[in-house]
């Protein structure tokens, strides 16, 4: 899927402004991810280290691959470094194993996909985006969505199906099934 992040990634190697665009586009996702791995009040420091390394390593980024996954991979390594430095004092070794092991990689994958899903949602027609946002981000039933928007239940059902189907196309679900 061609995402806004992919456009930023293509400029990363030769446009210094792309780093700030990258930070603006992916920062909330990366900070949310890091808060799952390191203490909340330390996550911002790791976030800064992550983007310093994104800048220093930009020549190694392959624009044909997911920018989200690449940045999250760097964030995970910086989180591991951070926990290693302080684990002798207070961090249980199990925490470090979780971040460094398969669980940490799986969480990074989930965050990368969540960022792509949010991007794709943004590209839907407003009517479809509205019902999906209320249903999935607002925890509304279809009946509640119908009441909130003042449209018939049948319309909500149709917009929901069409929106999910359009998301499937944007996210290449068919190709990955």
């Amino acid at each position, binding site marked *: 899927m061609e995402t806004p992040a992919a456009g930023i990634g293509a400029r990363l190697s030769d446009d*210094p*402004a792309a*780093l*700030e*665009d990258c*930070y*603006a*586009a992916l*920062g*909330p*996702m990366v*900070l*949310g991810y890091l*808060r*799952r791995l390191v203490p909340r009040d330390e996550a*911002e420091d790791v*976030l*800064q280290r992550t*983007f*310093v390394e994104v*800048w220093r390593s930009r020549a190694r980024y392959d624009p044909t691959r997911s920018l989200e996954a690449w940045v999250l991979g760097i964030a995970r390594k910086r989180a591991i470094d951070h926990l290693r430095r302080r684990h002798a004092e207070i961090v249980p070794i199990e925490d470090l194993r979780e971040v460094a092991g398969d669980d940490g990689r799986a969480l990074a994958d*989930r*965050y990368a*996909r*969540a960022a792509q*899903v*949010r*991007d794709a*949602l*943004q*590209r*839907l027609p*407003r009517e479809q*985006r509205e019902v*999906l*946002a*209320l*249903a*999935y*981000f*607002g925890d509304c*039933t*279809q*009946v509640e969505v119908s*009441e*909130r*928007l*003042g449209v018939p239940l*049948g319309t909500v*059902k*149709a917009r*929901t*199906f069409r929106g*999910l*189907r359009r998301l*499937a196309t944007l*996210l290449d*679900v*068919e190709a990955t*099934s």
Partner: protein
Amino acid sequence: MIGSTVPERDEHPLDDLPALLSGELPPARDAQVGEHLAGCDTCRRELAVVARVSSWLQDAARLPFAEPVELPPLRTPRARRRTRSRRWAGRGRPLAAAAAAAAVLAGGAAGLVALLDRGGGEQVTATVALRPLPPVAASGTATMEGHGAGQRMVVDVHGLPAPPGRAFYEVWLLDPASGRMVAVGVLPPDGHGSFNVPAQVAGGYQAVDVSLEPDDGNPAHSKDSVLRGSIS
């Protein structure tokens, strides 16, 4: 690969598939759709597509992303400094504006105008004056019409600048004390909107808010409020 074209909706209960997954179909309809699925490869493929996307959406909603305003300034030595992204720069300022607005609301400066009755028929139960939040210079009203489940809120706003790019203005009900809010709907470009707001929903909120929203798919309030008024 799952079928790339969507089958005819008249022949297949496609619109019911999301509700089937979430368990929202009435029992009789649930049984009908289940019976159809048992004999229809096409619908089973469609259900697989919908189920996968639905699970990804649930995960995207479950995983916390930081709020944009929580992001610290980027400290990268060789990055060219420039104005922060339009979205985040735009969301920093309104926090102060929102705090100021909350103070205004606490003082009761804006509020209920009157119980009116428009001669046209629909009974007006309340009109709320919407006050601009600096630097926006605009004005407006939110009028509650009707009763109970049939209550509507009619919003009229004048003087708002055209939203940049694909951004739009959105109307919210807000409880300033707890910070709870609910989206009422998108304000049309002409500044006039009519929204179904059942009285039992509106009763839980004390203020009407209009915000500038980027077209970013994020259903949360942007914290970029431009107008606000107290219901009580």
